[in-house]
């Protein structure tokens, strides 16, 4: 059995940042990163940019090729962990390799959720069937994107059907529209990007999509699909309508699954539970990224928030603590940036709260239909808890700073929605902190 000081399972945002943080603290300990995939390193959010033809496949790599050698990190591709024994502290790969470790990090992200859909002939849609089908795809890995792109090019696909209007569904939509394809997007809730969009923001983007000869079906889902051989030909929606399918992308979300850990070996809920140091319930086993349920500073409880910036921060936190530091994760909240053919949008935090005197919720908004401009700020107990910006996203991060730092905005309420809101309108103390300070502790 091979032995290592640090075993990192997962070679992406969380895993790579953890390794880098470990090296900052510990120049000598042996670090192994494992991935089940065959690509050296690539950024998941970039796979739709590759799909859209905006970047070549090589540019999906986000760390330089010499990253591993420079930091003396042992990287093992094509190594899928099938069992992690948290008590014996060893991991076993699909090909039978064993890794003993002092400390391990689970940074395996999420796997695509496959909703219950009937397949004509009596079966149910599942991962196996998707793998076998020529024109049904999930879209969470570079390999998924590569296959999808090849299929589209080879078969001259003109229209794509996307199931799911969340982050991945919209990123897919962005790519398809960019490629000049028409899309049909099917979303269960009453609006797209329901995690952070309200009806108004959603309708601006929906309209843009409809302008492009494409369609969106909300409050709807696919009930049944029809196949001819290994190809999907048609989908039947809940409202009874039928749509022809040239390709189907299943993008209803990702779930933090850890099939390689015995059930009960780690505390889990919606993801692996971790404390603020990214430690799991088992000693010396850490977890970070899309696979965990960690602090949401707005919900006041732990939640699974599967976004890149948080995976990076959690990975760093885990790495520092694995190497012996005592560094706490500050928590995060959901945020997202999408651009559908020229209409950009950024949304963050709790955006679906309604005005409510007793809960001290105020909602300020401004909408200019002629320029697709929309801005909405949600304030709860005098603090910003959510923001939506459509059409003009400049300086959106100032709102993220206000949310993260829990700044009382009661004195600047009248300005907060203004189009040219900037640091100068901020409460005096916070402004001073930003302007005169060094730019660190924000």
């Amino acid at each position, binding site marked *: 059995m091979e032995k290592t000081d640090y075993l990192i399972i997962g070679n992406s945002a969380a895993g790579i940042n953890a390794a880098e943080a470990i090296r900052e603290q510990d120049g000598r300990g042996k670090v192994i990163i494992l991935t089940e995939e065959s690509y050296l390193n690539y*950024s998941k*959010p*970039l796979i739709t*940019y590759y799909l859209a033809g*905006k*970047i070549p496949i090589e*540019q999906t*790599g*986000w*760390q*330089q090729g010499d990253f591993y050698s420079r930091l003396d990190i042992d990287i093992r591709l094509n190594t899928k962990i099938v069992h992690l024994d948290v008590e014996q502290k060893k991991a076993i790969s699909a090909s039978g390799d064993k890794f003993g470790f002092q400390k391990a990090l689970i940074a395996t992200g999420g796997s695509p959720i496959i909703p219950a859909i009937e397949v004509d002939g009596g079966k149910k849609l599942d991962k196996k069937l998707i793998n076998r089908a020529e024109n049904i795809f999930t879209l969470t890995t570079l390999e998924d994107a590569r296959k999808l792109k090849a299929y589209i090019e080879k078969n001259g696909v003109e229209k794509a059907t996307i199931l799911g209007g969340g982050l991945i569904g919209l990123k897919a939509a962005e790519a398809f529209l960019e490629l000049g394809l028409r899309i049909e997007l099917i979303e269960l809730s009453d609006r797209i990007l329901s995690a952070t969009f309200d009806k108004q923001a959603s309708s601006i983007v929906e309209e843009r999509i409809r302008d492009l000869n494409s369609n969106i079906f909300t409050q709807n889902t696919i009930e049944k699909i029809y196949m001819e051989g290994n190809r999907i030909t048609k989908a039947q929606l809940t409202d009874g309508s039928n749509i022809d399918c040239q390709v189907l992308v299943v993008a209803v979300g990702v779930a933090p699954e850890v099939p390689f850990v015995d059930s009960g070996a780690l505390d889990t809920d919606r993801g692996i539970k971790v404390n603020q140091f990214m430690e799991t319930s088992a000693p010396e086993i850490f977890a970070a990224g899309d696979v965990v349920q960690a602090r949401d500073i707005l919900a006041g409880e732990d939640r699974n928030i599967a976004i*890149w*910036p948080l995976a*990076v*921060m959690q990975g*760093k936190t885990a790495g520092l603590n694995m190497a012996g530091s005592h560094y706490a994760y500050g928590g995060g909240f959901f*945020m*997202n*940036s999408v*651009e559908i053919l020229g209409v*950009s949008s*950024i949304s*963050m935090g709790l955006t679906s709260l309604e005005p409510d005197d007793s809960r001290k919720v105020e909602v300020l908004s401004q909408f200019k239909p002629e320029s697709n401009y929309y801005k909405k700020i949600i304030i709860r107990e005098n603090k910003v808890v959510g923001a939506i910006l459509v059409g003009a*996203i*400049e*300086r*959106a*991060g*100032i709102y*993220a*700073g206000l949310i*993260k*730092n829990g700044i009382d905005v009661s004195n600047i309420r009248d300005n907060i929605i203004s189009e040219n809101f*900037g*640091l*100068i*309108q901020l409460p005096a103390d916070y402004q001073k902190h*930003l*302007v*005169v*300070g*060094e*730019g*660190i502790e*924000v």
Partner: protein
Amino acid sequence: MKKIYIQEEYCIGCRLCEIYCQVKHSKSKKIIKAFKSEQGQLMPRVLVEEIGHNSFAIQCRHCVDAPCVDACISGAMKKNISTGVVTCDQDKCVGCWSCIMVCPYGAISKDPGERKIASKCDLCEDEEIPVCVSNCPNEALKFMDMEDK
């Protein structure tokens, strides 16, 4: 590291820093050319904010724990470990605006040129002193190490 410090009490809102920044990052590096023929493709990377007599010039703070670097999905936004300067590699940037979403200073803009890329202060790495600092007539911007303050 040496950083730009803002002395807002001396800022009179003349916006010379913006002008010099814009010229410095122009193709021609010539003020008239930059303003006449490159207009529309240029934007200063320092922003003077002003209300009444209150004003200050703000550019990237080159944060120690830079949120923009953590948020960048392409590896374009990087902090140079030896100099501390945070820069955006324009060849890698894909214009996803994740960095704009998280910079608490609002110090990143969309580059007004043809490509969708982020634009921010690079501390004029090839100059001894960033041009906004060296051209401020009132020392409202200072370039120094915190220790010397």
